[in-house]
């Protein structure tokens, strides 16, 4: 079998994380038209696929026994499970970013810092105002000052100092193309 469907518990966890990230159920409401599947591997990749493409995948699956066919990617990669916990992958950024109601916008200097893989210590008033919307450990999409999505960050308040922890950023495409994918 090249893929498997998600269990109810896995599906629920993915949906909850997506709804929290987006601040709405705009995406998970469409999950009756699309299907969540997982590809087996060291990181259990989670993909969102249309029913038509799932039918195609079923056909490939049924005929792949006599070949060395390996399924690598199926339409939209949302993230992966590590130790039973779902995490967003950089591959989902461009799909999720246009759907989100929340997010943090950085200035040019911090954008550069973030896409170099660094955490952002929040000192500017502009970002502090945005951070007020978030609770401790909340994950959100980070944007550049001209609204380009650049990665996922986790909001923490270490000793009451707000910090945007870099979970993954688009700089990974040039930093470590081979290891990241």
């Amino acid at each position, binding site marked *: 079998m090249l893929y498997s469907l998600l269990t109810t518990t896995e599906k629920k966890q993915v949906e909850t994380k997506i709804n929290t990230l987006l601040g709405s159920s705009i995406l998970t409401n469409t999950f009756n038209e699309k299907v969540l599947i997982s590809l087996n591997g060291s990181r259990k990749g989670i993909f969102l696929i249309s029913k*038509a*493409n799932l039918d*195609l*995948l079923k*056909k*490939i699956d049924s*005929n*792949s026994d*006599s*070949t*060395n*066919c*390996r*399924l*690598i*990617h*199926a*339409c*939209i*990669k949302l993230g992966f499970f590590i130790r039973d916990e779902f995490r967003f992958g*950089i*591959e989902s950024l*461009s*799909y999720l970013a246009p759907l989100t109601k929340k997010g943090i916008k950085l200035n040019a200097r911090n*954008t550069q810092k973030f*896409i170099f893989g660094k955490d952002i210590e929040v000192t500017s008033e502009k970002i502090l105002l945005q951070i007020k919307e978030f609770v401790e450990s909340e994950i959100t999409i980070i944007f*550049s000052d*001209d609204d*380009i*999505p*650049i990665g996922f960050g986790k909001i923490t308040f270490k000793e009451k100092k707000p910090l945007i922890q870099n979970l993954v950023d*688009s*700089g990974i*495409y*040039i930093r470590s*193309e*081979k290891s*990241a*994918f």
Partner: protein
Amino acid sequence: MNTDFISEEFIKRWEHFYGKPRTKLITSHLRSPDPRIITPNSLKIRSSDLKRQLEKRGFKLTKIKDLRAFIVETEPFNIVSTPEYLAGFFSIQALSSLFPTKCLEPSQNTIVVDMTASPGIKTCFLAQKMKNNGSILALEISKSRIPALKANISRMGVSNTIILNFDATEFYKLNIQVDHVLLDAPCSGTGLKLSKNKRLKPRILDDIYRQAKRQKLLLESAWQQLKQNGTMIYSICSLEPEEGEIQISNFLERHEEDADLLSLPISSGFSGADTKWNNSSHPQLRETRRFFPKPGVDGFFMALVHKRLH
């Protein structure tokens, strides 16, 4: 660049196929550097907006006539480190990479197979044409070339593609009928500019014959799964007729009952029928295009094959 870099063996062959004056031009253009060419990603941004955003950062872009692409005239820092590149607003490639997908017209609900997909630039162009609808099967045999393919697909926001690590010569075994085939076949690469191709000297003629054999297998595997009335674009970045004109001429002879060449919707280049090789070429070969290296363009060959309705 050292002029001896291109072996005498290849120069003699090109003189035979294309004549001495043309060969002189070929070797001179192979040695010349290429400008940086970028193509906006229509899934994410309008050309005019991309130009404005990059020019705000100090880049200077010039639009290329008749193509949705720009030459980067001024690059104050490496363009790949811009948020626009990282967010998949554009791709970087030679102009020749734009032509094969320009020739396919997949409607939004069709199934297209990209037989040798990595690094995925052409797969991304296909997805743009299909507006992320329908299905693209991106096949790649080499495990080491998969990360680049995955990275390009996700960076560019492509969401209709299934990637299989798979030998495309066995594609027929999956029993999937497709509407269109993109076969940008592995080749000897003798049309590539020397700045990105260090292979001309060590390459030997056997390599051309080896690649031609593999191309034949790929063509047959794809053809078997192409639906009636479907189209297949075949392209190679090689100057060797064994991989281009002769390969397609032989293919047409093998598939006389159901294969026709279609005119390519591209005005530049030369007819493949002009290439001089020993055997008489198939009459339909006039529909193929042979491109010689020039600034921004590698040497390559293309043919668009149509499967007749019965």
